[in-house]
């Protein structure tokens, strides 16, 4: 276990800045998830920590030691790849033992470490097989086994579950959590899936276009998103965001034209301002008195209904119980609690309150 610190870490190709100064201090045994859409720079950041990419600016510090110029093998890290990267011509045992053999560990110790990892991951029966004889989930566990046996200071995960089918992904998520609780190795985990981020991370970095939009615990990120991007990215279905103006008295939010949302509690500080208004679908209730919307479509998920509606020019989603009685073509009355409102600056996208 070690601490991992990112100080102003930056990456550019030629004149093109791909990762803009990321700062974060990660504690021992903390599991941090870097989440963001494709192309936001999260993989690049991870690879800089691994030593697979050169760092253009800033420092990466592992356990108090600056590792910028070090080769991956000297940083005492292990990595799990999206495509598993298992050596196809070697058995599972040899795959896991490869790194240890290079470090000249005695055979007895290699044997012991590999078997122990195999036991933890429940792949003991597969030790003699070749990767092509294994299923996706088994291969991923072998990849993790290869990382575990090294007893590294930091685990790095590069979208390890993206190639698995949905059901397997849920199982593996639980496995990962159990593994972390057991081994407690400081971990940096990259994914584009916000569900993985919310369930696995002690803290989350939400990245967009090379910048860290917010760093915080899942609760913070969900409850107090710092920007409209974070607000829209975390949570499914995404938060409803609408641009408009708060009335002078702060009692309603005007959407343009005759449409307005009555605010359950006056927003005095926002009076008269142009704002972006946000409220999550799960915090909207049918039958309330804030506004009415025209129902366009109802998606049934079994346990919930997603009601897609329209107010003026804006599309909204409301999550409701299955027996709501809502149907396309009807008009629904919608309400919400005061605490469910999020205010953002319409130009800077930053949170206002």
């Amino acid at each position: 276990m070690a601490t991992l610190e990112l100080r102003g870490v930056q990456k550019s190709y030629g004149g093109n800045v791909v990762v803009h100064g990321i700062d974060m201090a990660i504690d021992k045994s903390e599991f941090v998830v870097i989440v963001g859409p494709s192309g936001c720079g999260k993989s690049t950041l991870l690879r800089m920590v691994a030593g697979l990419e050169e760092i253009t600016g800033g420092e990466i510090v592992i356990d108090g030691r600056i590792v910028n110029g070090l080769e991956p093998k000297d940083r005492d890290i292990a990595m799990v790849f999206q495509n598993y990267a298992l050596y196809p011509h070697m058995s599972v045992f040899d795959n896991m033992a490869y790194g240890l053999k290079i470090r000249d560990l005695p055979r007895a110790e290699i044997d012991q470490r590999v078997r122990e990892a195999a036991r933890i991951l429940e792949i003991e029966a597969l030790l003699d097989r070749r990767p092509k004889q294994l299923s996706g989930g088994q291969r991923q566990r072998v990849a993790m086994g290869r990382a575990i046996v090294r007893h590294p200071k930091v685990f790095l995960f590069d979208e390890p579950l993206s190639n698995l089918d949905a059901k397997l992904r849920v199982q593996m998520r639980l496995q990962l959590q159990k593994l972390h609780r057991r081994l407690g190795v400081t971990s940096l985990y990259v994914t584009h899936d916000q569900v993985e981020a919310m369930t696995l991370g002690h803290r989350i970095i939400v990245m967009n276009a090379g910048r860290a939009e917010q760093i915080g615990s899942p609760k913070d990120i969900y409850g107090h998103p710092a920007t409209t991007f974070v607000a829209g990215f975390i949570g499914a279905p995404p938060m409803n965001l609408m641009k408009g103006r708060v009335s002078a008295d702060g009692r309603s939010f005007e959407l343009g034209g005759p449409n307005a949302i009555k605010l359950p509690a006056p927003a005095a500080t926002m009076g008269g301002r142009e704002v972006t208004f946000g409220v999550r679908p799960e915090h909207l209730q049918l039958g309330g008195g804030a506004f009415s919307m025209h129902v366009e479509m109802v998606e049934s998920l079994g346990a919930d209904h997603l009601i897609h509606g329209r107010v003026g020019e804006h599309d909204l989603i409301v999550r409701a119980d299955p027996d709501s009685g809502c149907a396309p073509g009807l008009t629904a009355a919608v309400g919400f609690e005061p605490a469910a409102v999020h205010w953002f600056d319409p130009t800077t996208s930053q949170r206002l309150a």
Partner: protein
Amino acid sequence: MIERRRGFDFAAHLVLALGVLIVMFPVYVTFVASTQTAQQIEQAPMSLAPGGHLTDNYRTALFEGGSFASRAPVGRMMYVSLVTALGIAIGKIAISLISAFAIVYFRFPLRNFFFWMIFVTLMLPVEVRIAPTYAVISNLGLLNNFGGLILPLIASATATFLFRQFFLTVPDELAEAARIDGAGPMRFFFTILLPLSTTNIAAMFVIQFIYGWNQYLWPLIVTTSEDMYPIVIGIKRMIGGGDAANEWNLIMATAMLAMIPPALVVILMQRWFVKGLIETEK
């Protein structure tokens, strides 16, 4: 074809059988000739049934030489051909593997320049530069020895190309995982890249062995003494002027012997060979 007409099937087998016949006929005749005596052959037309002198002819050819025009023992010539072919095959594969590795897995100044320098050699077979290459070999003192036979022929880049194409298809993560596991470039090369390349190496071996064994023009120029003749040269030299004086049975026996090693290599490694041949030309 979708229709399973009986007639078409029959026609196909007929044509293929005919093709095989045409392809095999010269070889069959050669074989038959190698089992008869010189006199039997000279009584044209030669009978198409095998004669009874197989062991005699082959023994004579191997140890005593093929005809009055060339008394070089065929055994020696086969040896020269074998060493040359193996030398060319192994030499070319070895230098090409490491060159392709360097070009694909490293970034260094002049990399593109070196790549194009090597690529250019693809375009010019040795026949085009025989006279000056002869001068170079002569200056290096490599005339009439294995060095002279082998070295100029490992200069072309076909193997480098094939290996480069293949290395480009190996997933990046494999090298990255190895790097994180602590493997340096050469360890990666020997423990991971090479084992993955065995099919391509096998295919290249077949192609280069045959190329080396069948070389004619270059050995013709660079060897001056009979004991350094590869067998394909030896055979030609056995045919002195005027057929009557040639001992055709021995010449044909030599021809059979000359065909056997490369044919064996092709047949035994047929699958890799076909695959490699097609991959080379992409």
